[in-house]
């Protein structure tokens, strides 16, 4: 580390007679303890940061998450707040601009002094704010399914890791539809790349030949799917049951499904299982031609449990819109928020260090009738649900894993990470512990 140089220069300043600078010179520990002190709630409220894009390309997905957070905070306040104080939401707009995410994160933590932040959607926005959260030692709850390969002490990942979504979906298609040939289609960014890498290794380990796997990447917002859909159709005419595993992101999905429907690819011919298509995305499509295509998530609006019925009803009432749908990342925020409340109550303070330690092991009910527990790797346990698209834009749940799946934050299918584990409990406290060499390669909390 370069602490030597920096502390030297700071000492130089200290000699100038500024006592505080000398104090700061002792480095990270000092700096880190002084920040949380400032993060203690002042006055009668505890501030909660909401860092979701309200404009720009990601507003389409993230606005809903801001609304659900406001609803959860309102509900909690109606129940009497937290530690005897009211919660106060601080909403900012990072405008789908990644450097702005980092700036806003810094502002939430060091200017608004929030106790925790709920936010981000894309991987790049999380990567952008991650150094800020680690530097200023605050907490981020990240609600979206992602590519894994990360385990920060300051982030709680309430979305699915690849093994909590992709592999059960592939297993379902193998067993239920006897699929032998696979198209892995995705948008060209980290999440599809990693997921496909993992799936390719997984399929090969099951004896699927290279010729029976087709991988295709398209740019963000791709809107002309004619020849890709045609080539999928062509790939599917080899006499073996074929399926598409889609990691196509957001905006590109609507034209993709429209083209599928028009070229007459029915779910009974070539089923498409998607990992980024939820109720929100379907709300923008006429789903009649898509009946039977699949999605794998950890939650669907159509889950039949009393908790979910209540959640959906409250949401519709809160948004004053009977047509507003719920989706998986919303459930992740629901779980994450309740976990944070519980951890704060357990710790008796909103001090991030105390809350981070208290959060591990906290279990709260999820909306599908089970419990979500925060594991030592800062990921949560989830059931995996497979749903088929219905004509009304909802999913009919056709399969559910019997138990809860624990997240693999480091993929066993990537050579460099197969020996890594994350465990933030004392005494290990390491985000990437190599079990072979017995060393902590990254994320060690000093």
């Amino acid at each position, binding site marked *: *580390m*370069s602490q030597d*140089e*920096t502390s030297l*220069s700071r000492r130089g*300043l200290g000699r100038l007679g*500024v*006592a*505080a*600078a000398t104090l*700061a010179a002792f480095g990270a520990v000092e700096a880190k303890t*002084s920040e949380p002190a*400032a993060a203690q709630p002042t006055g009668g409220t505890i501030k909660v940061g909401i860092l979701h894009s*309200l*404009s720009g390309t990601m507003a389409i997905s993230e606005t809903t998450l801001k609304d659900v957070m406001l609803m959860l905070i309102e509900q909690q306040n109606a129940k009497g707040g937290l530690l005897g104080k009211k919660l106060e939401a601080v*909403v*900012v*707009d*990072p*405008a789908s*601009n*990644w*450097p*702005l995410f*980092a*700036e*806003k994160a*810094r*502002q939430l933590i*060091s*200017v608004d002094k929030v106790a925790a932040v709920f936010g981000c959607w*894309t*991987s*790049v926005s999380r*990567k*952008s704010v*991650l*150094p*800020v959260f680690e*530097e200023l030692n605050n907490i981020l709850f990240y609600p979206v399914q992602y590519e894994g390969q*990360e385990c920060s002490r300051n982030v709680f990942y309430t979305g699915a890791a690849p093994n909590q979504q992709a592999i059960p979906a592939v297993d379902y298609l193998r067993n239920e539809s006897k699929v032998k040939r696979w198209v892995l289609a995705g948008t*060209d*960014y*980290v999440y599809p*790349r*990693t997921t496909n*890498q993992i799936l390719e290794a997984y399929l090969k380990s099951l004896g699927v030949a290279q010729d029976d796997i087709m991988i295709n*990447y398209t*740019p*963000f917002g791709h809107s002309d799917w004619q020849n890709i859909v045609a080539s999928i159709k062509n790939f599917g005419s080899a006499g073996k049951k074929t399926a598409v595993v889609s990691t196509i992101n957001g905006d590109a999905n609507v034209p993709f499904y429209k083209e599928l429907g028009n070229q007459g690819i029915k779910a009974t011919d070539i089923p498409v299982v998607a990992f980024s298509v939820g109720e929100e995305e379907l709300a923008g499509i006429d789903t009649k031609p898509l009946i039977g295509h699949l999605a794998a998530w950890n939650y669907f609006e159509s889950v039949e449990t009393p908790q979910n019925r209540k959640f959906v009803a409250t949401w519709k009432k809160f948004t004053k819109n009977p047509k507003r749908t719920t989706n998986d990342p919303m459930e992740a925020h629901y779980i994450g928020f309740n976990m944070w409340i519980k951890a704060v109550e357990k710790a008796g303070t909103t001090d991030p260090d105390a809350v981070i330690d208290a959060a591990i092991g906290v279990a709260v009910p999820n909306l599908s009738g089970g419990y979500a527990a925060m594991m030592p790797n800062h990921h949560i346990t989830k059931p995996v649900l497979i749903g088929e698209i219905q004509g009304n834009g909802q999913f009919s749940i056709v399969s559910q894993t019997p138990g809860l799946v624990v997240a693999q934050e480091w993929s066993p299918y*990537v*050579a*460099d*990470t197969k020996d890594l584990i994350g465990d933030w409990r004392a005494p290990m406290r390491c*985000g*990437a512990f*190599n079990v072979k060499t017995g060393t902590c*390669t*990254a*994320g060690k909390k000093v």
Partner: protein
Amino acid sequence: MKLDRAAILTIVLVFGAALVMAALNQMTPPASAMHVPTYVIALAGKYLCFAMLALAVDLVWGFAGILSLGHAAFFALGGYAMGMYLMRQIGDRGVYGNPNLPDFMVFLGWKQLPWYWHGFEWFGFAMLMVVLVPGVLAAVFGWLAFRSRVTGVYLSIITQALTYALLLAFFRNDMGFGGNNGMTDFKAILGFNIQADSTRSALLVISALFLCGQFLLARFVVGSRFGKILIAVRDTESRTRFLGYRPESYKLVVWVLSAVMAGIGGALYVPQVGIINPSEFAPGNSIEAVIWVAVGGRGTLVGAILGAILVNFGKTWFTSVLPELWLYALGAMFILVTLFLPRGVVGLFRRRSRLEPEPEVPAASAAQEVTG
């Protein structure tokens, strides 16, 4: 070169403010009322880098009449060169502890460093690239464009195409620049901890230094004989050509210079915001940079700096105060400034100097006034 009061004031203000902020951040305790929080330091550094981009745009737009809608591409290229250096500085402190490969390459299963990454472990080489990459691209692009007399709107549109093509190219994971995620999680610059307050303060002061340097250079260029011819090219290109000058050469030189200035801005931007990714190439970013110049006052140089700082401060402010409505404010600002402040904020305060461009009123709109 003589400096007028405004120029001296600008330099004193920019450099002085940066120095004072950095000093207050370092020397006062966090609890003190005088303390400047690191958050403000990081913001100020970012604004100054944007100001360099605005200055570069003003140099070509205000003085050579080339409206570039792709200048953010040069800014981002400079940023990528710096980002590559910073990635190499991480060494084995990355998540995977791989001393040779950046994390995202390990992640994608790459086995060795692509050839174009070699050399970036040296600061000097990386800094050379910060200058060379935008410079060479600008030279090639400019040579082709100016030689065949692509001007005005046509040029603006192909600069948009250029930055859009680069955006798509850098999005590709196969390019080896980190795809959509770009580069992030930097640890150190020249051995200094990049997250330390002292490094941030130093970067702010360095940014201020470079901005003032660029400002002086730009002043020198536009005040020189070269600059006079440039202005002649801007006002009537064909007449200048008939007088025996070669407008394309003059344009090319200032175009390359401007691209390099933008590249340096980008290089300083990356360590301060901590991330570089393809969205910096987004066509909208370049248009925004032009708007900073328009807001400040085109062809004034001072105005470019002022505009960049004002608009970005506005953005920071509005996105927290009016998260739902800030786009209205921003959009309305652009409309109002172009309608009512054709000479920008600076135009409010002073008489027009000979260096400034005529407001564009060719025959068409003159006729409009007659009939309308």
